[in-house]
């Protein structure tokens, strides 16, 4: 038998969600991070600040990955409420993301080998 009571439940979900002021701050941070992404792209490919192109160009991909991951985490934690909701929901989201990253790396690695063999 389940130990659930007949009363409406609250223990998992009654956590406080962030308020509008937090949502506004996160929106501004997301906006700035998106602007930074485009700035990194433009500098890296000689669109603006050409003096910095040589320095930034090799860093474009790692910087974009870091900025994108930061935006992803902010939306998941604050807008999707994973920071305040139960750990079960975080697990349901994080586990497939880990699987997805493994899947992506496996596919890219596998096809890199295939393309190398085809070239030979």
């Amino acid at each position: 038998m389940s130990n659930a009571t007949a009363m409406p439940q609250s223990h998992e979900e009654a956590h406080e969600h962030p308020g509008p002021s937090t949502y506004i701050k996160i929106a501004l941070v997301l906006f700035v991070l998106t602007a930074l992404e485009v700035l990194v792209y433009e500098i890296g490919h000689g669109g603006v600040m050409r003096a910095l192109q040589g320095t930034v160009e090799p860093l474009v991909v790692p910087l974009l990955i870091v900025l994108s991951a930061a935006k992803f985490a902010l939306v998941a934690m604050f807008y999707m409420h994973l920071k305040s909701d139960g750990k079960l929901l975080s697990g349901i989201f994080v586990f497939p993301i880990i699987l997805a990253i493994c899947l992506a790396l496996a596919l890219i690695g596998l096809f890199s080998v295939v393309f190398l063999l085809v070239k030979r």
Partner: protein
Amino acid sequence: MAHADAHALHPPTSTGIESRKLAIWTFIGSECLFFASLISTYLVYKGKSLVGPLPHEVSQCMLHGKMQQCEPMFEIPLVTFGTAVLLFSSFFVVMALNGAQTGNRKKLLTWLSLTVLGGLFFAAMQIYEFTHFYHKGLGYTTNLFSQTFYTLTGFHGSHVTLGAIWLGTLLIQAFRGKLTPDKAVNLEIAALYWHFVDVVWIVIFPVVYLMR
């Protein structure tokens, strides 16, 4: 807090989590793998096209029945603006949810309307982009880039469209006064889907448009 009480009211479950909320999270988990496959496929075939048009480079392509020089496809400013609109629509929907949970009807209607408009704008931008690309010689079967690009962004666009329709139905309910605080979880579930669509674009935008 009113909103904490409002979304705590649901029938008993063994996990203590509203069943529909658990279901949408499980669905979102499966969608992560779906989009990971599409993004991986795009990356695997990146740079493998034998003919143009290409995303960032001038190339030789077949246009109007003859080989000619084609301009790069991507228009970064337009897509950046669309990305910002989609990001802000995620902000709009959490504000709408806050309005629904606290019983603030005006706040709910305003922010939810903006969310739907943001979603429709993004979908319209993508339709414009696809049409524009098609007229510049990039059909679905033109090259490996076109196939992987249209499949990935097209599936994302269809998710945005579905999300906008879903939120639109909730907006109609809200206008009729039927989206009361005790039913705010209906909006919370749609909002979770909407945020997921947003985070997928957070990955697609740099991977497809900004990484050469």
